[in-house]
């Protein structure tokens, strides 16, 4: 078994309104960053998983995201893996 460190990014689907992101965007504009647009707030998670191969680790992570870490109705996810 190998251990893989994973960084998981969960973001709101583009069709879902993100009022918190809009509020942060207006805050940035008030600070003078006039060129800012499209602020979206998501979640970042880290975990380490043991698996026989990187492919197996990826499969497990996709299942974890589908089953719990993200809600496919409102969220998309992506992740990166590194062997540790």
């Amino acid at each position: 078994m190998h251990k893989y460190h994973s960084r998981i990014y969960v973001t709101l689907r583009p069709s879902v309104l993100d009022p918190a992101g809009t509020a942060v965007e207006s805050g940035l504009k008030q600070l003078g960053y006039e060129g800012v647009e499209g602020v979206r707030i998501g979640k970042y998670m880290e975990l380490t998983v043991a698996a026989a191969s990187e492919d197996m680790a990826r499969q497990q992570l996709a299942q974890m995201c589908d089953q719990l870490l993200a809600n496919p109705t409102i969220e998309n996810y992506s992740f990166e893996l590194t062997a540790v």
Partner: protein
Amino acid sequence: MKFGIIVFPGSNCDRDVATVTQGLLDLPTRMVWHQEKDLDDLDVIVIPGGFSYGDYLRCGAIARFASAMKSVVAHANKGKLVLGICNGFQILTEVGLLPGALIRNRDLHFICDRVSLRVERNDLPCTKSYSRGEVITLPIAHGEGRYYADEETLKVLEDNGQVFLRYCTQQGEIDVTGNPNGSLHNIAGITNQRGNVFGMMPHPERAADPILGPTDGRKMFEAISQ
């Protein structure tokens, strides 16, 4: 008609529901700890409001995996009644018994208020004591109550008449001024296609005892018990 009320760590409206079903209406009621599995004695399962498991990750996301929830799904699949209120509605969407999701309110605030609601259907077990189109008043108390579903799902909900409760103005108009949290289509409560699982953000149990004010919610429990 026997009621069971699921109690998760963090549930906080469980005893309010029991106060109505057992205390006011004298109906057999038992509290169901989230680790229980055998719910066969129950006719109606209520998933109450609160913050199950701290609502970590997403509202209802962890509660969905409780042992009792497997039995709730089995109970629903037999055609028996399930009512999810507030956090209970969020859990029902997470577990997949109802479509869509409840997300952060449009204006980011936790809203604690009394709101007007239009009863869209009165042919359901929980709404048969109201008239169709009747405007009722119930309390809401949530930070994540904005109903969201994709266009396709919304169309299915509307085509099948699965929306049984909508936020409205005092006059019963369905518009943005009567929509406290930005829910799509002003949705406050939906049912599944079979019509035996109900999810709603407003709290009928908090509007049942005349000592506490309006009693529009009491009729919902009376209807279910008949």
